[in-house]
């Protein structure tokens, strides 16, 4: 057993994956609770399509003679898209999921057309789907540490405001809370977490890190704080377990993490059901 862990941690790429992954998983889980409640569960998927569209735009602009690194066009645009999406509140006429569908479909289509009309595209939609959690560089590690420290601190500092604004924005605004600012804050944190997470480990994994822990925690907890805490714990645990299993059974890393999350979700659903029916039986 000890031997196994020794081997596991002897590979730098695994150590990096575990560090980066756990930290991003932590941030994603914290923000995930709000995202799921605000009907943004599919935001990871949606943004990956925006990423594809904007990259082709970057390449297209290049072909027109503008010398920009495609990434320098794409990254800000994806953040802007995330930001715009997340400012949609419960009161807007277009709901979160519809807005995601709208933006993701449009970017994909625009991307396909730009690519067809300019140089052709060498960036695949699928590149955004499956990242490479195992290919972290040193910089990625620092970036993820910085990111998660910032997200964590801001989240804890503004936890109560975030709760108030998510639960009932009208009341919060009426009693003088600057709901706009906190919405923007959550939006920004989420945008950055998702965009960075997506680039580092692919849309599939970051999408799942956002929704699974929150949904799992909601199966058994009925208050906001326990949900938040449990989902953070679950997220990191599942990530680590997934990586271990991937190493043990040589399964794809990201997918393994997702499957572990799925299993835990099923277990907790069952648990929730049992606890419920305990009374009526």
């Amino acid at each position, binding site marked *: 057993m000890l031997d196994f862990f020794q081997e596991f941690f002897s590979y730098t790429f695994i150590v990096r994956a575990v560090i980066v992954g756990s930290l991003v998983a932590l941030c994603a889980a914290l923000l995930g609770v709000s995202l799921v*409640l605000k009907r943004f569960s599919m935001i990871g998927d949606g943004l990956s399509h925006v990423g594809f569209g904007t990259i082709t735009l970057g390449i297209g602009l290049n072909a027109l003679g503008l010398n920009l690194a495609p990434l320098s066009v794409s990254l800000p645009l994806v953040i802007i898209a995330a930001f715009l999406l997340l400012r949609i509140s*419960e009161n807007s006429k277009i709901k979160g999921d519809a807005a995601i569908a709208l933006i993701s479909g449009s970017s994909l289509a625009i991307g396909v057309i730009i690519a067809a009309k300019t140089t052709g595209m060498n960036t695949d939609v699928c590149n955004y789907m499956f990242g490479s959690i195992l290919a972290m560089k040193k910089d990625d590690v620092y970036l993820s540490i910085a990111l998660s420290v910032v997200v964590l601190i801001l989240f*804890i*500092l*503004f*936890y*109560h*405001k975030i*709760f*108030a604004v998510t*639960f*009932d924005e*009208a*009341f*919060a*605004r*009426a*009693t*003088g*809370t600057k709901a706009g600012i906190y919405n923007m804050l959550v939006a920004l944190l989420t945008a950055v977490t998702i965009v960075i997470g997506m680039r580092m480990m692919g849309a599939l994994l970051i999408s799942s890190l956002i929704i699974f822990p929150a949904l799992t925690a*909601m199966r058994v*907890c*009925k*208050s*906001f*704080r*326990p*949900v938040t805490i449990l989902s953070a714990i679950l997220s990191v645990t599942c990530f680590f377990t997934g990586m271990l299993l991937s190493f043990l059974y040589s399964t794809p890393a990201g997918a393994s993490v997702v499957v572990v999350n799925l299993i835990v979700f099923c277990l907790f659903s069952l648990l929730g059901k049992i606890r419920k029916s305990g009374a009526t039986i």
Partner: protein
Amino acid sequence: MTLLTCDKLSVSYNRITALKNVSFHVDDGDYLCIVGENGSGKSTLIKAILQLIGTESGTITLNGIRQTEIGYLPQQTVVQKDFPASVFEVVLSGCLNRKGRNPFYGKAEKALALEKLAELGIATLKNKSYRDLSGGQQQRVLLARALCATRKLIVLDEPVTGLDPLVTTELYATIKELNGKQGIAVIMVSHDIQGVLESANKILHVNVEPVFFGSPSDYLNTSVGQRMTGGTTHA
């Protein structure tokens, strides 16, 4: 001292005018009751005062009072069926603007929340999930939250809706005490005119345009006042 002045306020939705040229003022310690038919613009007026919706013309001036010192009970609160929030968390969120820059709630805020829960007879529900409550219980929780947020002014949009008679009576007493002893000004929208006539010192009747603004006794002498109270006076 005048806390709030509303001058020639007009509000419209799309092409529909909901309020036109409404003027009134609330002084320190006032107990203002806003009455009117369904759809006459009462909630719209409340929302305009609290800057939840934009106005078309006219001014609203707060004087010596910040928005963080106002408590608010909305007429309708649509809470998502799946929102995990305990009753205590909801009530505590009313203390948000009391805690100032401190990121966490102190003992004082928690004690206040517990006190309001007890006052409204829902202390036992403290750890229940908000979404699992009965309609009247939810209304009481939101009331407790509003009471927590209140420091100088409380704005209530049909607060007794869905409350049982016993709690209704208690609530009126609570608000009266808040108003009388603690000097907190009250703005209340209510269809239960009988219930507030005793306590209120001002009545505003709107019907898109203002119909009446003055004291309860004067109101009862107007024909519209008679009609709204069914021609009978209470107490």
